[in-house]
Structures are given as C-alpha cells and as structure tokens.
C-alpha cells in the first residue's frame, strides 16, 4: 500500500465500479471453482461460473484492457466447452483457471494503481490464454486460435534470437542509415507481423497498423503464402504479412502491438547484422551466434570457455575479411565494442585501452589487421581471466548455501530468514494490495455516528463541570484547566464528527444520472423537445438525504415535462425556442443542499390554482381572496390538487407534488415554487447536508425545557402584554405590520400554568413557521441554541406525535424536541 501512485489520479467512476465489481466477481469465480472441484458435474455451478466469467469479460471490454479481455475470453471459451459437456471438469482445469484469475486480479490491482496495464503483460496474457486453449479438445480450436498457435512465440523479452531475420531485403542505403543510428545508441527491432486471417472481421486494418508503427524505418508487405488466382481469392481473409524495421523501444512496440501480440514476432537487431547481410552465405551462422552471445555478455551468461572461444573466433573471422566495403569503419567499431564487452565481462580490465588503441590504428589504416593482431596476441588472456572468475562464483554460491543451512535448523533465531523462505510459496498473494475502497455495512457507520453523537453530548458536560468546580468548590484553577481541556476535546470531537459525516456523504450525481434517460423517454412520449442541463453534480450530502431525494425529484421532473414545458408548436407560436430547457442544479449553501429544478415552460397560473384549490375545498372563500399569488402557486403541494385537465400515465393524479412535500419535510427540508406565467417555473428544494445533527432552540415554559428545531423558528420577540389582542378565544398581535395569531405553549401541551411575563410585563413570543403560516408561541423564556443528535422516540412513546424526538443535554438531562407542525 505504500507504493500507491505519486499523484492520485482523478478516478473515473465507471472504472472504479468496474474494479469493485471485478473484485467481487473474481472472488465468486474462485469460490465456484473450488466448489466445482468437489462436485464436478454440478451443472448449475458451471452455468453460474460461466456467467460470471462472461460478465467480467464483457465488462473488461468496455475499457482498453486487451490483456485482461484476452485471458478472460479464453477462460470463457474453455468454460463454454465444459458447459456443453465437450470437456470434463478436472483439477488441471481448475489450476489453470485459478491462475488465470490470479492474473486478472493482478491486472485489476495494477489498473487501480496506475489506471493502465503495463504493456509487458501482453506476453503473459498470450501465454495464459494459450495454456487455457490448450486444454480444449482439439476439434474445438477455431480459426482464431489456430493463428494464435501457428506462427509465433509470443513477444518474449528479446531473448529469443532464433535466426537472423532476412535483413538483406532492406535496401542498403536504409540499412546503413540504421547502422549509423545504432552507433548513436539507437536500437532496432525486426518485426514479422502476420495478421490473423480473420482480422478484417474484427475491424482490423493490418496495413494501417504496420504503416503507423512507431519509429518505422522500413517496411514491406508480402503474401504470407502464394496468393491464389484472382478467381479464388477470398477478399475477407487476410493473407498478407508485414516485415518492419523500427527504431522504437521494445516496450513501445509491445504497447503498440498489444492488441495483436500473438501475431507479432520481434527480434532485437544486432548492429553487426546490418553490416553483414551482404555476405550471409559465408558466415551468417557465426555472426548470429556471436551476436547472441555478445548480447548476453553479463558475467553470468558467459559461463563456459567454449562459448567465449567461439565468440572470439567469430571476431577474428570478421577482422580477417579482406573486402573493403564502405561501412568498414562501422564494422571495426562494432568488433571493438564486442571485444571490449567481452573483456569487461571476464574482468580483463586492462584490455579496454589496448582495444581502443588498436581500433584507432585500424581505422586509420582502413583495415581490420591491427585489431586482429591484438586479438591473436591476447586471446589467451580472455580464457585465463575467465577460469578463476568462474571458480570464484562457484565457491561464493557454495558458501551461501552452507551459511543458510543453520538458518533452517534454527528457525526462531533466524526468524527473518525463515520468513524469506516462506514467501517463496505465495505466488498469488505476492503482489496483492488491498482494495482502496471499502464496502462497509451502513449499520457500522451508523454505530460510529451514534458513538460520536454520544461523545459530543458528553463533551458538552465539561463546561458544566468547570462551572461547578468554580461555583460550588471555589477552585478556579481547576475550572480553567477543565475549560482548556474542553476546547481540545471539542476540536477533536468536531473533526471526528466531520470525518464520519464525510464517510456518509455521497454526490448528488448518483441521483442525477438517471435523469438524462428519464427526460429523454418522457419527452419522446409527450412529443416534446427538451434539453436537460445538469449542474453541480459533485455537490455532496448525506447518503440518507440523497437516497430520499430520488423519488421527489422524479416527480418534479415529470411534472415539469408534462405540465411545464410546451410542445414545439406552442413554443414556436409564443416565440420561444422549440427546444425547452430543463435545468437541474445542485449547490451547497452553508449547511444545506439546495436543489433547483427550473424549466422555461408555461409557468403556473395562480388564478387557476386558486380556483382549483377552492373547488377541491382546500381553501375557503376568505382565503381565496386573501392569499397572494406566490402563496397560491405553492398550493400545488397541497394534497389532492392537480391542474392537468386529463389524468395521464405520467402525472395528473394530484398526488405527485404532495408526495414531494411530505418526503422533503420528512428530511427537515423545505420546498418552494416560484413561477411566472409564460416564462417558466422554478422549484427549490432545500435540505440539510446531514440529518445527524439538528440545530434546536431551547425554550423554557413552566420551569421545563423544550427544544424547537431551528428550521421552524423565524424569530424571537418580546411583546408587551397590552399589545396582545383577544379576538374571541384566540390571541393575536401585530408584528412588523402583520397580524400573527398567538398561542400559549402551555395551553397546547395541556399545562395549566399561564405564560410568565418578564419585569417589563412583556411576553416572550417564539415566531415559528407552521403549516404554511406563521404562528407566535408564548413561552416563558429563551435559552441557547444547541446542536443535538436527535433520537426518535422509542416504543410506546413513538405514538406521541407531539414530540419529534429527544436529545441529551450537556448536563445529562433529557431535552424533549417539539414537533411544531403537530402541536398547532
């Protein structure tokens, strides 16, 4: 886990989902494979296994992970055979499939860390896929696979220098250019690219691929087999092959050909080959061998003197050539560098300078003789140097073996070493980094949330304690220290709460992502042209809020589409663009999320709403006259109101907007409509970011404390007793020019005591928002506002709808939270 990416990449959510699913599927596949070993004939298990591998393969195809897809595809084919009864399930099969799945798992880890697969995996993928296909019954191998097995060894790290490629085909000028560039430190590869016969069907264009090979210096196309007469030619079968010479690096080429690694054969070119091609008949075999060995000229590679001798002999032969080609100097340099490497590898240090000197002479004389003379004179030195070094190597390894023996005997003492030994057997686990995201049961997070809630409440007890220490016991010092500690604990607890809330946060995009489809389908059905604009998808809020938001939003969007936006003809007639715009916008404002759904449709006519509401008996005649247009528009949220003349399958049953309001209010949110006839409608939903902490205002009445959610509170005022008017049984007061009904909290709660006034004979009025109107609650006094963790009433008490819940106060007492809507 320490070697995580240096710069955290912006994650693609689709990719993240793929990885998490892949991990689950791999685990499932592993389990099923094990189960199948015990019950090899269980058809259900096989079907399930097949389906899982198939799903995983399909998913991997969404991304550019050909290595993964290749292996999974082979596994799928194999399982298909098993499913059709063409192949019996065997332990060997399980082994291969398990190792293939380990490979896929490793790739997933790699993708997770770097978002791509290293090109070097392609060869492994081919090998694995081949080993899987090798398990299939012969007859089943289709054309696609036959090409896989036929021509090639997969791109191995450039070790296999089987035979020298036909470099003579390359025009000499180009070959010389390549040779010159080799001298500048470039490396060339020869590529034989034999496209699969059916590659056209896969949308492949081998010629294009060949043309665009990175670092391409030369290339040619030729028939893989003699082309048939025109009449018999199959246009859709690729029967060409390509030879390429490129200066690109091996990794680069492996990456470029990663989709067709099985069709490509790559050979690293030794510069010597480029110079030699002319005289291939004579000494090709020697040279290629020499080149092979020179390439491997690390001390370990040259282990026997015979190889060395052969190598030196080859150099002698080259030098002895008596032709004088234009590239003689290059040839001499090449020989000199081979000699130097050889000398280095056997530890013949003083050779380097001598070779340089001889090379200088040779170049000046334009002849290989000076170098040849030197080589003849010093050849024996090479072998002499080699022998002791080999002996030293051997003795060193012996010593190591010996020293490790006691370690095995004394496992405890050499605990670290013993560990090293164990690691050997853990192939599958070696590279395993844990997944970086956790799937956690929500209950566990909720528990954390509860615990932090308790901690916050307990922490609030400290100031009381400090007060008591000072007031009761008179120890001021201690009181101050407690306060100091309190501020530290306060900070940590707050941060912890924040962290836990973050865990529960989700982006609104989770809900938003279903709208494009919904809008498209719905507008199609209605014959309307609608453009959907989503904004602020990254806004985050608590998981519960986000989830509860989905349904109300769908209602609103449907309503907008059905009632709000007009058909193209109507819009055109009104001079609006034919395509209506529906904007869904989310933003965070302080500790609330605000979601706006705005359309540029026909708007809501308050007159119509008023009339409808009156007809349905939702408002009385007096209200009909009194309410403002703004209030009228908000009547659409009242239960049982629908403005659409006809009930459609989309909306019009008059439940939609009512449901919206209920759902939003359940989340302590509010919803407001603003609309202008002919211009459009905007619906604003405002929700708390998190439901965990509720802000409440503490009030006092008849010596008891109660909490009122701050969402309900409009303001607190003191009203002189004489400005309160009694109209029949009810009290009213004029506040800021408005007539506000007043009710005594005591009365509402069935407490007989009268509201108490203060010294100036003023009554405390808590102005609250309740059921669409304002109401003044007469209380005895106001206290502080608190952030509390509200606990719902449990058991029998939950039937008391007057209370929305209870909370613990800092001094340990219980605060009952009023449900304002219910008591008025």
């Amino acid at each position, binding site marked *: 886990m320490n070697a995580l990416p240096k710069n955290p990449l912006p994650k693609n959510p689709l990719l993240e989902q793929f990885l998490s699913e892949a991990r689950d599927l791999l685990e499932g596949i592993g389990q099923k494979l094990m189960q199948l070993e015990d019950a090899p004939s269980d058809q259900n298990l096989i079907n399930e296994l097949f389906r899982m591998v198939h799903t995983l393969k399909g998913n991997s195809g969404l991304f550019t992970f050909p290595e993964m897809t290749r292996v999974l595809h082979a596994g799928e084919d194999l399982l298909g055979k098993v499913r059709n009864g063409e192949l019996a399930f065997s332990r060997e099969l399980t082994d291969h499939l398990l190792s293939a799945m380990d490979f896929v798992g490793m790739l997933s880890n790699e993708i997770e860390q770097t978002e791509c697969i290293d090109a070097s995996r392609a060869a492994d993928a081919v090998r694995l896929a081949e080993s899987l296909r090798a398990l299939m019954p012969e007859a089943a191998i289709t054309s696609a696979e036959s090409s896989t097995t036929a021509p090639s060894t997969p791109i191995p790290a450039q070790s296999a220098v089987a035979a020298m490629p036909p470099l003579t085909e390359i025009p000499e000028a180009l070959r010389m250019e390549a040779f010159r560039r080799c001298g500048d430190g470039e490396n060339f590869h020869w590529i034989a690219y034999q496209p699969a016969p059916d590659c*056209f069907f896969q949308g492949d*264009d081998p*010629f294009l691929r060949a*043309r665009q090979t990175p670092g391409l210096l030369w290339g040619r196309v030729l028939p893989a087999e003699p*082309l*048939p007469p*025109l009449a018999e*030619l199959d246009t859709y079968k690729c029967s*060409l092959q390509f030879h390429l010479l490129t200066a690109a690096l091996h990794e680069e080429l492996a990456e470029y050909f990663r989709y067709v690694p099985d069709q490509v054969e790559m050979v690293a070119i030794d510069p010597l080959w480029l110079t030699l091609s002319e005289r291939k008949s004579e000494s090709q075999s020697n040279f290629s061998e020499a080149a092979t060995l020179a390439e491997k000229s690390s001390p370990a590679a040259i282990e026997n003197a015979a190889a060395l001798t052969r190598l030196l002999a080859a150099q002698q032969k080259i030098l002895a050539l008596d032709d004088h080609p234009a590239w003689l100097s290059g040839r001499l340099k090449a020989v000199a560098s081979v000699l130097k490497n050889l000398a280095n590898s056997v530890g013949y240090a003083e050779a380097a300078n001598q070779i340089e000197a001889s090379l200088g002479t040779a170049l000046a004389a334009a002849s290989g003789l000076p170098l040849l003379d030197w080589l003849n004179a010093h050849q024996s030195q090479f072998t002499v140097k080699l022998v002791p070094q080999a002996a030293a190597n051997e003795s060193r390894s012996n010593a190591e073996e010996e020293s490790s023996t006691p370690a095995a005997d004394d496992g405890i003492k050499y605990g670290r070493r013993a560990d090293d030994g164990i690691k050997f057997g853990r192939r599958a686990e070696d590279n395993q980094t844990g997944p970086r995201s956790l799937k956690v049961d929500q209950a566990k997070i909720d528990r954390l949330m509860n615990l932090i809630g308790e901690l916050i409440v307990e922490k609030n007890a400290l100031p009381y304690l400090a007060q008591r220490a000072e007031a009761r016991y008179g120890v001021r010092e201690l009181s101050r220290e407690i306060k100091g500690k309190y501020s530290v604990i306060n900070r940590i607890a707050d941060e912890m709460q924040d962290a836990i809330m973050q865990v529960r946060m989700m982006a609104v995009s989770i809900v938003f992502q279903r709208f494009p489809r919904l809008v498209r389908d719905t507008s199609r059905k209605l014959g309307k042209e609608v453009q959907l604009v989503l904004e602020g998808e990254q806004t985050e809020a608590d998981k519960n809020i986000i989830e509860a938001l989905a349904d109300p939003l769908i209602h609103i969007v449907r309503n907008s589409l059905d009632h709000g936006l007009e058909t193209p003809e109507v819009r055109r007639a009104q001079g609006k663009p034919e395509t209506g715009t529906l904007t869904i916008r989310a933003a965070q404002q302080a500790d609330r999320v605000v979601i706006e759904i705005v359309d540029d449709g026909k708007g809501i006519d308050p007159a119509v709403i008023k009339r409808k509401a009156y007809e349905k008996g939702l408002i009385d005649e007096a209200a009909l006259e009194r309410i403002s247009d703004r209030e009228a528009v908000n009547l659409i949220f009242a239960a049982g109101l629908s403005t659409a003349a006809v009930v459609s399958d989309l909306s019009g049953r008059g439940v939609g907007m009512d449901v919206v309001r209920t759902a939003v209010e359940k989340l302590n949110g509010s919803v407001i409509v603003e609309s202008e006839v002919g211009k459009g409608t905007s619906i604003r939903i405002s929700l708390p970011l998190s439901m965990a902490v509720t802000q409440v205002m503490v009030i006092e009445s008849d010596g008891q404390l109660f909490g009122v959610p701050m969402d309900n509170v409009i303001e607190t005022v003191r009203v002189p007793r004489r400005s309160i008017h009694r109209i029949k049984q009810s009290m009213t007061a004029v506040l800021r020019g408005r007539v506000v009904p007043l009710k005594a909290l005591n009365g509402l709660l069935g407490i007989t005591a009268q509201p108490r006034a203060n010294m100036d004979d003023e009554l405390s009025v808590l102005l609250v928002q309740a059921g669409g109107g304002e109401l003044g609650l007469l209380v005895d006094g106001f206290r502080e506002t608190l952030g509390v963790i509200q606990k719902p009433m449990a058991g029998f008490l939950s039937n008391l709808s007057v209370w929305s819940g209870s909370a613990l106060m800092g001094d340990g007492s219980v605060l009952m939270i009023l449900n304002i809507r219910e008591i008025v």
Partner: protein
Amino acid sequence: MPIEFKKNRAVFQDEVGVEEAEGLLEWLQKKPAAKADLSNLSHLHTANLQVLMAAKAEISKWPENAELRAWLQPALKPAV
C-alpha cells in the same frame, strides 16, 4: 466514391476502406487488363492491397504520398 471505376482504369481517392475490396475484386476479374491510378490515395485497407497484389494489376500512377509509395511500389511492381 473512394474508388472511381472508369472504362479501363480504377481511380483511387483518399482512404479506401475494407468495404471496397469486394467490388474491386469483381471489377478486376472482369477487366484483367485494367490499370489503377493511385495518385490521390492516402490509405488503402489491407483487403484492397491484397486484391491489387493478387490481380497483379498494372499501376498507371503511383501515390503522391511518398511514404505510401515506398510501401506499395515493391509490393505491386511486376517482378523484373
């Protein structure tokens, strides 16, 4: 049209995709003596290249694109 079939001459334009190969093959079968004008060709799908190679069609004009010409000339020139 990526390939314009004239009386005795096929004129290749820009990029010639795989879907042309079948038509090209049929046309060349009917007119074995036809020539191909590749001067404005920028890319030829492998399938078409294969057909041209098999038909040993005579090339009246080589592509102006030098890189493409370097590929096509050795493959399509009649062996001397």
